[in-house]
């Protein structure tokens, strides 16, 4: 078993923690309030993951985990993290081009997602309504802050660069908080559907230039993160800090920059393959985020 790469937020070279949870193809290690995930190389990077080949977890929850001079040991495992390739996402696009083709791309993403959700039978009742409430809250807030979200194509000072007014819209913040509270921890699974959706929304706002809206949503998400599972909370806190997994970064970047447009279908499929239903929920969040940015047609996101 060999470590082949790691995410850019994996600490080192020295740290200590313990094994938080053990699954068939992954282990979570609790280190300094964050989860570090050791998982099979077949799965894509997250900011805090170590990818290994030939992975079979041989550890128990509660076991100590220790990294000394870049060599990580826990349970029966010893992994050399020195000189590993480090996955780092590209910097977010400096500006966003919102045009007709963007809308077409979003249509394509929505179509692929719908087919996937139907084929996999992973519809989560109630998620759509909660998602729509979030959108209304975000857009309502934006309307109280001219330029943050309501500006459309050709409005680089608004949507595109995200140079919104000061975050003074308390009614909007309260609405966003209520909507987020109804999503965090909502749905089945290790990372509940509502969490995954919020990660998708935050990814678009973070990397697509939704500056003020991102900061509002991120601060609210941080406040509510304790209401969900440990793993869900971990990914929510990362997202609130602007950190996302590789498939969602790749998809969002293709959508918000218009570059690599041909890759959108493949990147959508890659994002959908994350977890059991996490991918589909995350992509729903991306679509919702695009609508918040004003670059997606009026389509139900979830």
């Amino acid at each position, binding site marked *: 078993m060999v470590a082949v790469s790691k995410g850019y937020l994996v600490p080192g070279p020295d740290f200590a923690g313990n094994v938080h949870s053990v699954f068939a193809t992954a282990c979570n290690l609790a280190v300094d309030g964050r989860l570090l995930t050791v998982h099979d190389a077949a799965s894509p990077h997250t900011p805090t993951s170590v990818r290994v080949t030939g992975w079979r977890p041989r550890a128990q929850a509660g076991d100590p985990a220790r990294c000394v001079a870049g060599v990580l040991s826990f349970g029966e495992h010893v992994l050399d993290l020195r000189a590993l390739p480090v996955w780092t996402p590209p910097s977010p696009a400096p500006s966003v081009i919102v045009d007709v083709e963007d809308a077409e791309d979003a249509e394509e993403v929505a179509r692929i997602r719908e087919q996937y959700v139907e084929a996999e039978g992973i519809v989560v009742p109630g998620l759509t309504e909660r998602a729509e409430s979030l959108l209304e809250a975000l857009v309502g807030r934006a309307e109280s802050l001219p330029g943050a979200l309501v500006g459309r194509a050709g409005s680089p000072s608004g949507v595109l660069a995200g140079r919104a007014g000061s975050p003074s819209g308390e009614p909007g913040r309260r609405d966003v908080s209520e909507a987020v509270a109804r999503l965090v921890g909502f749905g089945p699974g*290790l990372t509940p559907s509502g969490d995954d959706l919020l990660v998708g929304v935050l990814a678009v706002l973070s990397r697509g230039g939704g500056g003020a809206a991102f900061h509002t949503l991120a601060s609210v998400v941080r406040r509510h993160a304790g209401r969900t599972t440990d793993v869900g909370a971990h990914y929510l806190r990362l997202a609130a800090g602007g950190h996302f997994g590789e498939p969602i970064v790749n998809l969002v970047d293709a959508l918000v920059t218009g570059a690599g447009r041909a890759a959108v279908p493949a990147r959508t499929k890659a994002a959908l393959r994350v977890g059991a239903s996490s991918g589909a929920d995350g992509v729903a969040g991306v679509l919702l985020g695009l609508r918040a940015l004003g670059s997606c047609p009026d389509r139900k996101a979830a």
Partner: protein
Amino acid sequence: MISIREHRIYPNRYQDSVALMALSAALAKLPGIQTASVVMGTGTNLDNLREAGLGEVDAGPGDLVVAVLGEEQAVARALELAEELLAEQSPGDAGTGTVAARQLRSLRQAVEENPAHNLALISVPGAYAAAEALKALRLGLNVMIFSDNVPLDQEIEIKRFAEEQDLLVMGPDCGTAIVNGLPLGFANVVRRGRIGVVGASGTGMQEITCRVHQLGEGISQALGTGGHDLSAQVGAVSMLRGLRALAADEATDVIVLVSKPPAETVAKSVIEEARTLDVPVVICFLGADPAAFGGDTPGVHFATTLAGSADAAVALARGEARPEDRAVALTGGETQPGDPVVALAQGQDRAGEPYFDRVRFAPAQRYLRGVLTGGTFCYETQLLARAAGIQAASNTPVAGNSALGDVGTSTGHTILDLGDDAFTQGRPHPMIDPAPRDERLLAEADDPATAVVLFDVVLGYGAADDPISGLLDAIGQAKARAEREGRALAFVGHVCGTDDDPQDRSAVVARLREAGALVAENNAQAAVIAARMIP
């Protein structure tokens, strides 16, 4: 009837969302149950349970909650069923992967669970693979051995025993197979059809099966044999068994055999066997001279490239004339108007000038540098480049080429197999983790003596989810540096895969072309174009 509500809490228990949704649905369908929900005990989910009339539940976010409402006996039955189903399910993974299947602890358990199981895939360290294979064979299972480093005497023992049991052994070191439409190991998503393949070459089989798919036909079975099967010691036991199996298969109309050159006596025995069959057989023994084996006969057709063998098989399946293998013809001949290779190159150039005439190399740029992840692609490239007059160094040289002294440093024309042991000790194959390929490509491009950089991209199951983002970065960096230094670089590649692969071949090809690479239709074509571009 009076309804009651009850719940069970399973502390610190995680299941993936699909499993929980399926469990909720199963419970809700039981007679006498009004509503049921199986969720993690997050605050929001507990609120929802209360709103749904499932009562107050005191659980934490890490707890799994099963809550049901219905008639008393039905509720008891539902909670029992939930207990049983949860006990059957292993924990799912940490939100980044797939649902773990029920864990089986032995091959015997698997056979007992379902006697219809008839194939075992073995992937354990080579020292233990033979013992596991023999266990499987004794249980009546055919075997695919993914493991490498299995001693040859053990391979012979396994295959002899399998012959006695009338069973097939694929491998050792069998990385690719498609059995009854199911891709195993490194394999691509291809449609099912009437062309069967038996191969001692993993990427060779991938290239052929993908090309068959691209041409509109499909694959009945693709059976790997492992790289040593056609050695004199082993005697093509697996290839012969696969050949006979496909000949007896009603779904197979044409068979393709592919391998690097076998031992001569072994090749003769395989060809003799093929000539006795009613099903036409296309034979691609890379680097072997068909004339030495009697050349084409009505039932046996030789091909000298991977793509050419797929083209021949498709033509035979359709009852059409076999097309000329232009890649081979072009290694020594002149281009012709309308030639597909030239047309491809022209397609890259808005001015209509062939790509390989358009790139203006600096005087010092003289060499071809191949960075290939497919072992057979490296082999085929060397053969075609040799035929075009290029003598190259390689870590896996073909006859007439030289062994590279230091695999870390290229010299003159160099064509590398980056999947060879020399590059993969202690690290994954570059088809899984392409970063080393991208680094080497950049290093080759930085050499002022390099003119053409040749690469491959392999898609499909087992290959990297995103095999080209790093490659595109490397090409971009290399081009920028070369431009600053007054050099022009040509990047020529091919993508082995299909549009149905998870990585989507069309999207990958489009991105590479967007980055300025010439993307050929197949490996042979890429090799010929690259060789012809050398000044």
